[in-house]
């Protein structure tokens, strides 16, 4: 595997929260370009922390992280912001600015390349507005730019969040349980956009998921976390009832209707 084929390299990362709680315990992994890596594990197993460490929303206590060969850990100021801008992220709770219009929310994805004065007065260049419109078109919300963000349904809000991340022109996409607070029937409407970005544009995606039924459809590789430790790594095809119990514990049960027995 050649070095410049690696999108993310995580080396011995440990994250300790006051308590102390070891949210991540000596996690090392590599993600290749173009992968759709799904992270699974119980709530509190460290999935979110791992994702948040990658773009430094959370600082790891120990260990190092590289993004496309550039070190994320230790980056400061402009350098850190430039690296963050190359990583799109979507969240379980969408995290849109509710009182802003959909358009403004998408435009905020361009903040890292907008001058301070223009961004504080919220006057984006016509060029950026055109790009934002194109991003909205891509997620199928081209006609909703003028709505207030909180007037949209959950699935639509998450698609706005995808458009905001697209606005960053990212090389890497982090998705922290992107569909966990959506109606099951709407989950594919969001996941499909991630799939298109991954398959057609070669974007690397790291996605924390809870629902096992989405894993086989979208993942190209799977890792499992348990109590902050990496306990599983493999193809989604190799994921079965046995490995499920290994990750989720003896008490967990595979939901009915799934083919892994």
């Amino acid at each position, binding site marked *: 595997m050649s070095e410049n084929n690696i999108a993310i390299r995580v080396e011995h990362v440990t994250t300790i929260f006051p*308590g102390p709680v070891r949210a991540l315990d000596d996690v090392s992994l590599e993600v290749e370009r173009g992968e759709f890596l799904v992270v699974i594990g119980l709530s509190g197993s460290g999935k979110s922390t791992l994702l948040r460490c990658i773009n430094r*929303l959370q600082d790891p206590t120990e260990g190092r992280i590289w993004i496309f060969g550039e070190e994320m850990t230790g980056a400061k100021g402009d350098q850190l912001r430039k690296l963050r801008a190359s990583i799109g992220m979507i969240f379980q709770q969408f*995290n849109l600015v509710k*009182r802003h219009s959909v358009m403004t929310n998408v435009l905020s994805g361009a903040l*890292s390349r907008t001058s301070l004065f223009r*961004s*504080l007065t919220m006057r984006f260049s016509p060029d950026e507005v055109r790009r934002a419109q194109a991003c909205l078109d891509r997620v199928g919300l081209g006609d909703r730019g003028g709505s207030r963000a909180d007037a949209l349904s959950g699935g639509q809000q998450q698609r706005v969040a995808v458009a905001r991340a697209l606005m960053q022109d990212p090389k890497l996409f982090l998705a922290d349980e992107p569909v966990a607070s959506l109606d099951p029937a709407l989950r594919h409407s969001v996941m499909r956009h991630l799939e298109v970005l991954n398959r057609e544009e070669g974007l690397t995606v790291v996605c924390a998921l809870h629902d096992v039924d989405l894993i086989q459809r979208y993942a190209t590789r799977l890792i499992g976390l348990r109590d902050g430790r990496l306990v599983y790594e493999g193809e989604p095809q190799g994921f079965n009832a046995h490995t499920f119990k290994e990750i989720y514990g003896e008490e967990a049960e595979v939901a009915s209707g799934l083919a892994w027995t």
Partner: protein
Amino acid sequence: MTKGTRRSAWRRVLEPFQVFLIDAGLIGLGILMVELLVIAFSGRRSPTGFLLPAEEILDLLHYGRAALGAALAALVWGRAEGGVAISPGAALIRGVDAAGPPWTRTLRGWFSFLLAEATFFTGWLVTEVQLMQFLTQFDKAQDMIRGLLNPSSAVLHQGLVLLVQTIFLAFMATAFAIPIAFVIAFMAARNLTRGTFWSRSLYTLTRTVMNLTRAVEPLVWALIFISWVGIGPFAGVLALWLHSIAALTKLYSEQIENIDTGPVDAITATGGSMLQVMRYGVVPQVIPPFLSFTIYRWDINVRMSTIIGFVGGGGIGYILKPRVDLGQWGEVGTLVLLIAGTVWAMDILSAKIREKIV
């Protein structure tokens, strides 16, 4: 990791002192209140034959001895182990088992119960509660109340003019306070100032200064500014302005502390700078509560400016004070009605506006 352990090490050193201070304080309070009650009910009289008034009894108490006794008792009690005998300070600082014995079977339970009782009776004595006078002497206030209910029109014109001044005085104080409080509030919000040593110091400094400013009554600020810029409404504007900055900073920063961190994370993740994160992640969330608190503050300032007028800070209070002193209750009634009407109107207005923006 090191930070956490260092902090808990500090806590271990501090704990015994905290426990001792709380215990000694409570016991000392108990001793003094018991002594006060004993003196009061022993029927001791002053040389002129009257029962001792509260402030004279307070003068007689043995504060030094009470402090010494309390300190000794606290030293002993603080060492007590187990759920039944543990001292109140230890219970507060170290915590107690929620499933422990009920308060009726713990030493600190009974101590707290008796302390609460003693506090009530002491309060009754110290504030010289006189139920008989309250219930039987209504007729002495009749004149005044009759005057208030029959407002005289003599002062109506002047009152209206000064009422306008009062409203503007409150408005100017609020308006000048907004931008300053807006900026300081970000420095006084815990969740935005956790980062570095300097930002934490900034938080402590702004909080302290604002709390001190708020602790001083606007009336006192008015006196200060009256000697600074002279008698008149401008002194009142300055007094309310300063107090409003402190009050608004507190309200604003609490709103900032209560924001949803999601949008902050999201804007940070796009590579936004600190100011951009504030503008997009924080400001949109706090604008509605800020507006609502600001209008509320204007409302408060209208009421406060009446009192500030008493000492020469301009506004309607300025003509109210001499009429109260001279007992011109009809004119006082007119002015009070004007103030009450304004406060009532502003209350309705601010409720309506807040309803619309939140």
